[in-house]
């Protein structure tokens, strides 16, 4: 049945405007992009995959084919496995917090009579701010002795926290910055989802005796936001997974590896130690995980259409 529908749709579809023109024009239009696509995306990815099977070091002339050795070494590489664990732990903190905060802000602002524009502006501000600059501000803000955050804690009679100097807190500190810079983005996506919920559904719910705000939220808003929710979860996960700037600026992976994350470790391996072969293997792992996320994202988008 679906196959029939697609076939008839294809038969009925009018031919494109340029169908009768020489395809040479189209090739001319597309040529610069195709060239760049090959040079900056396709060829480099192929080379990167090939590199991952070699022991290539930058600056060396010889390249030795080592097969899967780089990959088998990664499994036993404590630094790499720690980076992988840290990255997943980081995602597990950032995604739920930024999604829930984004949803909370969107719902709260949507119900306001006045001041929606003001709040949207404020909560979106961190999204536009240069993250490196703001990371430096956060570093000072949470500084172990002179940071305003600690001064406030102390004035309340609480002990000071050296967040980025503490192995147990550093990753959570970075996660907090990411939640701050991502919540406004998610808020906008949820706001778009909220406006697409028809007003009549709330009226119908009210007529059915659903009076409580929470009732309405759980029975009307949340189910209808389902597709948006899935989508926001996946995009937040991808963003969190690519964490790099704050690590490079604030902690450099420390203290003692507590904030080593996948991209930062790969960066050091390739561009600081110049071990291109094993850095390429790390990149393949990174890209594979990204592809899985992208696949889920595409599935979610497909589902979104059916709602």
């Amino acid at each position: 049945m679906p196959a029939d529908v697609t076939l008839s749709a294809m038969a009925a579809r009018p031919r494109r405007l340029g169908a009768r023109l020489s395809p040479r024009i189209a090739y001319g239009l597309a040529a610069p992009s195709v060239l760049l696509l090959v040079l900056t995306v396709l060829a480099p990815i192929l080379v990167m995959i090939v590199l991952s099977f070699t022991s290539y070091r930058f600056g060396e002339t010889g390249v030795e084919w080592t097969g899967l050795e780089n990959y088998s070494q990664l499994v036993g590489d404590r630094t790499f496995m720690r980076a992988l664990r840290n990255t997943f732990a980081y995602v597990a903190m950032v995604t739920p917090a930024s999604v829930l905060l984004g949803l909370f802000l969107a719902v709260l602002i949507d119900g306001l009579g006045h001041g929606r524009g003001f709040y949207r502006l404020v909560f979106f501000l961190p999204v536009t701010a240069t993250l490196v600059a703001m990371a430096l501000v956060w570093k000072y803000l949470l500084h172990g002795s002179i940071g305003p955050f600690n001064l406030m804690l102390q004035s309340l009679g609480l002990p000071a926290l050296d967040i980025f100097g503490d192995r147990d807190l550093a990753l959570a500190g970075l996660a907090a910055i990411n939640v701050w810079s991502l919540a406004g983005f998610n808020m906008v996506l949820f706001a778009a989802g909220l406006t697409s919920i028809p007003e009549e559904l709330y009226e119908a719910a009210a007529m059915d005796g659903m009076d409580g705000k929470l009732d309405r939220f759980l029975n009307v808003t949340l189910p209808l936001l389902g597709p948006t929710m899935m989508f926001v979860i996946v995009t937040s996960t991808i963003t969190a997974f690519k964490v790099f700037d704050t690590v490079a600026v604030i902690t450099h992976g420390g203290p003692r590896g507590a904030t080593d994350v996948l991209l930062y470790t790969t960066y050091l391996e390739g561009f600081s130690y110049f071990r291109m072969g094993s850095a390429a293997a790390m990149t393949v792992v990174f890209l594979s995980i990204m592809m899985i996320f992208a696949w889920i994202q595409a599935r979610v988008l497909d589902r979104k259409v059916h709602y």
Partner: protein
Amino acid sequence: MSRPHRFRPGQILAHLLLLFLAFLFLFPFYVMVVTSVRSPQELFVPEFRWLPQQFTGLQYYIQAVTDIPALTFLRNGIIVSGGILVVQLLTAIPCAYALAKFEFRGRDLLFALVLFSLTVPIQAPALPLFLGLNAIGAIDTYFAAMAPFFLSVFAIFLFRQTFRSYPDEIIQAARLDGMSEWAILWTIVVPGCLPAVAAFSVFSVTAHWNDLYWPMIVIRSNDLMTPPLGLSFFADSESGANYGALMATATILTAPLMIGFLLAQRHFIRGITMTGVK
């Protein structure tokens, strides 16, 4: 129009909650600006004061543009993100037009490759791109900072969607008038799709202005550093403990996008969240 049961107490409670959160969200910006105008001695007293006891005026801002080459970073940011944007528009627009309005062999393959590339972050081709740029002696140049981003598959994707809904009749009429396809594209179709161009420009400039990863790999000299790279380099140097100058520099380098955002809020929000709603 209004949702049912809009109680005033609920509204007040919502405002209180939102104002508290807004305060938390704005606090880092406040600290950045206030630290850039207070004397260093104040930073080491064990108490947070809301206002500077001793107002240093523009002292640290002057230091930022003289000692730290903040204006050079600013200029580099404009050159790199501007250069990237121009090439992206020049290459992606014709390709998107071909995909939207032409039928040619390989079109579906090309579009499939565009969709695939949408999911590939810069970190994936980074190693070979670095080796390639090194081989042609281009490391530590503006070209190296820009080249990997000359192609924006996202721009191709976005403009293809936009051009598809552009009326065929107008294009057909222009063809009958004997206009070339390039002239039709740049003088008729693109001017008719300016909102998409604006949204993409915001998206692209923001992304590349703020990028640290790639400049960190290919830029070495201070003269060529983009805002994030210059800032992180300065923070790691000895004078990085000069918080006043550091925060003044951070303010200067964050200001262009912030001002743009405040002036064209709608465009910014749409441009930046575009990837999220594609």
